[in-house]
């Protein structure tokens, strides 16, 4: 113990303590130097890197959606425009109880049952982090009333948004289509096209028609605001602005007045009409009846309206001009006639005797003419004017299916026309090869016979039929049918005309064309199948009527329209062009269950031509009929 006390002398203890203090000082120095080197690393060596990170934190890019381009008709009438409106929008992911919130909201802003239904549908189709409109077109006082109470509704906001509007509604839907909210499929396409950046901030995209096929031009270029944001993403201030460029203005070849006349002329009939300028392929009118109001889709359609449209037996959503196939019926005959002439199967003066039916040698099956007892002696001219079936049964048999196919496909049958909107069907122009592919069956001679009169496997879209008629009208010059005349580039202000639509010229003897034309002109004269089309017109009209069977008539049975349910009655068809010598308009009309082409489709064609060629409005005529009506 004594030793121990001696060791513990004060001086030594102090030295030991001070040594440890010194060591501590060294320890501190070491760790402070460690810190300093860390600071040097972060603040000098890595400074640029962290500066960028801080900037990325701080600066956010906010897209500015461009105004969608206008769509005009050929005369500058606006067919699709934008309007700005306040919308009340809910971000579902930020709202706890959606139903309760909507109920609460309806105390300040009127929310109708249809608004709620529409919102439900949007909800099903969207992501919960998207801001979805519950009400659009708020009134100013509604905006004010909500703004005062905004704080009570987290996740609910008022936005000023641009909406698409189609002033002519149903009238223009067959070719304009519509825009709708971007869905996952659209997003995939946008990503695939590398347009993701340009669609930041865009909620809507063209879904059909011109809106879809000219989406790229109509959309415009999205602008960007560089804004400083805080950590919760709130904007603090704008640093710079890169303004958006509006979408291009698309001018169509459609004459909206002509479109309106055509649409009205259908009355309550269902059907389709396509009118083309045969000199350049410009589509003047493009009708599908009944239509639907495309404005419904812009703000998001509610389930009930959607179901109503989708389940209606009138199929208003079906684009009959483009996406429906019908047998061409007798409108096919002028093309058959040309095939016979050009392929030297029959000369214009060759005559056949029509007993009212055609039989294949060695078979008992009767291919009946529409006229019991037949038309007597029939040459080419008469075969068209009276629409003799027997003549074409025989001609089809003479030519055989593959020759028919090869010749007539030049008129665009059996393939897409390449119109500048999507959704087109290609119809059917049968051939032996086609049947083998489609049904794995060989072609029988009996299959060829009804093809001669546009029945059997023959199927066309009204657009195809109009295209073929336009080729006929222009003496074999084929122009691709198109709806867009020009696009005005919003950036440069340059107007870009659609490139020449000329496709090819058919190699057909002009004399044969003249023979067919003169017969088609006589179709519209007394004694023809469509006398009302030409009656009293100061110009000559070339036309051909057609009737397409909806149901088959058994051997020995007779077709009596009044015995058959309206929906199973024959479709009426008509192709026509005028003036016959220098055609300016070619058209094809289909009237579903319209019976005979001359009777129901004829007046429609005439009204169109009168307006287009003479600037004559059909009103006068309609009024005349009204005045005359009680007298009948």
């Amino acid at each position, binding site marked *: 113990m004594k030793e121990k006390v001696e060791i513990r002398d004060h001086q030594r203890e102090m030295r030991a303590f001070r040594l440890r203090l010194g060591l501590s000082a060294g320890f501190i120095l070491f760790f402070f130097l460690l810190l300093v080197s860390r600071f040097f690393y972060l603040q000098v060596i890595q400074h640029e*890197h962290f500066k960028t990170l*801080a900037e990325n934190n*701080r600066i956010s890019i906010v897209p500015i959606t461009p105004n969608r381009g206008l769509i005009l008709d050929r005369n500058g009438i606006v067919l699709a425009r934008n309007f700005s409106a306040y919308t009340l929008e809910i971000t579902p992911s930020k709202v706890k109880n959606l139903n309760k919130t909507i109920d609460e909201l309806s105390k300040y802003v009127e929310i109708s049952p249809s608004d709620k239904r529409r919102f439900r549908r949007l909800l099903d189709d969207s992501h919960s982090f998207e801001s979805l409109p519950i009400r659009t077109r708020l009134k100013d006082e509604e905006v004010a009333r909500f703004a005062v109470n905004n704080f009570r509704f987290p996740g609910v906001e008022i936005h000023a948004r641009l909406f698409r509007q189609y002033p002519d509604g149903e009238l223009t839907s067959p070719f304009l289509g519509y825009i709708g909210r971007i869905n996952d499929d659209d997003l995939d396409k946008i990503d695939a096209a590398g347009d993701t950046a340009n669609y930041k901030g865009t909620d809507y995209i063209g879904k059909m028609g011109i809106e879809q096929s000219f989406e790229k031009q109509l959309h415009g270029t999205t602008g960007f605001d560089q804004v400083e944001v805080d950590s919760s993403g709130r904007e603090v201030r704008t640093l710079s602005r890169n303004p958006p460029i509006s979408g291009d203005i698309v001018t169509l070849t459609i004459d909206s007045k002509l479109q309106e006349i055509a649409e009205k002329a259908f009355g309550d009939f269902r059907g389709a009409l396509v009118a083309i300028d045969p000199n350049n392929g410009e589509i003047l009118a493009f009708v599908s009846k009944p239509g639907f109001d495309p404005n419904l889709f812009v703000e998001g359609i509610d389930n009930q309206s959607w179901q109503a449209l989708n389940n209606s037996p009138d199929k208003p959503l079906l684009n009959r001009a483009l996406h429906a196939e019908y047998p061409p019926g007798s409108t096919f005959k002028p093309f058959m006639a040309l095939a016979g002439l050009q392929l030297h199967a029959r000369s214009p003066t060759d005559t056949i005797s029509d007993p009212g039916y055609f039989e294949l040698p060695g078979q008992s099956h009767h291919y009946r003419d529409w006229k019991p007892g037949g038309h007597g002696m029939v040459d080419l001219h008469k075969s068209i004017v009276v629409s003799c079936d027997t003549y074409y049964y025989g001609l089809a048999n003479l030519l055989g299916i593959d020759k028919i196919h090869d010749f007539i496909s030049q008129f665009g049958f059996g393939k897409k026309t390449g119109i500048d909107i999507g959704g087109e069907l290609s119809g059917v122009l049968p051939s032996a090869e086609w049947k083998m592919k489609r049904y794995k069956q060989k072609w029988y001679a009996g299959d060829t016979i009804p093809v001669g009169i546009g029945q059997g496997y023959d199927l066309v879209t009204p657009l195809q039929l109009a295209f073929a008629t336009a080729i006929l009208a222009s003496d074999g010059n084929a122009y691709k049918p198109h709806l867009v005349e020009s696009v005005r580039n919003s950036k440069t202000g340059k107007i870009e005309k659609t490139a020449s639509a000329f496709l090819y010229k058919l190699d057909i003897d002009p004399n044969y064309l003249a023979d067919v034309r003169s017969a088609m002109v006589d179709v519209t004269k007394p004694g023809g199948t469509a006398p009302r089309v030409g009656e009293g017109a100061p110009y000559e009209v070339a036309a051909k009527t057609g009737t397409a069977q909806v149901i088959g008539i058994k051997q020995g049975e007779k077709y009596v329209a009044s015995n058959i349910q309206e929906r199973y009655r024959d479709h009426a068809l008509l192709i026509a062009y005028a003036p016959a010598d220098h055609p300016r308009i070619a058209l094809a009309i289909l009237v579903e269950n319209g019976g005979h082409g001359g009777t129901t489709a004829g007046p429609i064609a005439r009204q169109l031509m009168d307006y287009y060629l003479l600037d004559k409005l059909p009103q006068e005529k309609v009024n005349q009929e009204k005045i005359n009506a009680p007298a009948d």
Partner: protein
Amino acid sequence: MHPLIRRLHRTLSNHIDSFLLICTMILISLGLAVLFSASDENLAKVGSQVVNIAVACVVMWAIANVPPHQLMRFALPLYVAGLVLLIGVALFGEISNGARRWLNLGITRIQPSELMKIAVPLMLAWYFDRHESALGLKNYAIAAAILLVPVLLIARQPDLGTAILIASSGFFVLFFAGLSWKILGGLFVSGLASLPILWSVLHDYQKKRLLTLIDPSQDPLGAGYHTIQSMIALGSGGPVGKGWLHGTQAHLDFLPEHTTDFIFAVFSEEFGLIGNLFLIFLYSLVIARGLSIAARAPTLFSRLMAGSITMTFFTYCFVNMGMVSGILPVVGVPLPLISYGGTSMVTMLLGFGILMSIHTHKKLVKT
């Protein structure tokens, strides 16, 4: 000067170490300036910090006027009271943010672990001083027990930051009391060896913090967020900083806790490397003064207290700046004299008060 004022001045400054006071005041003023920026120019917040400072200064002055041997008398009761409260917390404490740290005494809520920051080193210094004449291994073992009981109780709350700070403040007492190098070496080795065991008893959030230290980008919006954002603040500050009130990380709210534990990130973003060097320089002056007071302290108790207080102060500085700059895990340790908050300010200045007491009463003893 009027004699009355002179007397007042003497009474006030008699036991104040002016060097330490000046350094402290510069740091505190710097802290207020940073707080003004970090709180988005909130004068009310700066005002309430001024009140904290005033209270802390009064405490410092009061403690500085108590001679060290008087302070020793508080050691045992303070320690026992702290321990009882800690046990109380463990049994009846209130849970907030997943940790049981607070004790509701009916009148007020207290966090006994704060008390232990002073009570533990005080107790240990007192204990060593009492047994100065014959320090044996047994004494170190008892000291270790005195230290470990509260540390473990606090670590269990869980409050790892405070536990580490108290453990280190106690360890420094042991170290300065002359804990043999052999034992130190042994502690170091067994410490390393027990790391895996330590790892297994850590809470999940604590493990996560350690893991994110290695790679903060693993969980950029979760546990790594604090570290990533504070590193961005530091790094983007660059050599000279973005200028006072111009730090974007803090002002746009990207930095968490930017008036308290992460205030250094704001300082560093706005004043850059130069500011950091200046801050470390100031801290070094304070530490140097503390060490020199310790070196000249007359009694074992005062040496141990001065040494421990100074080293603990350094530990605060290093852990906080290390955490903000991403070399240490995120633990709740404030930046001394700068971070907003009354408790830490009082604790710091109380410590300085003891330093001043040790320094000034030594002179009085001599004369």
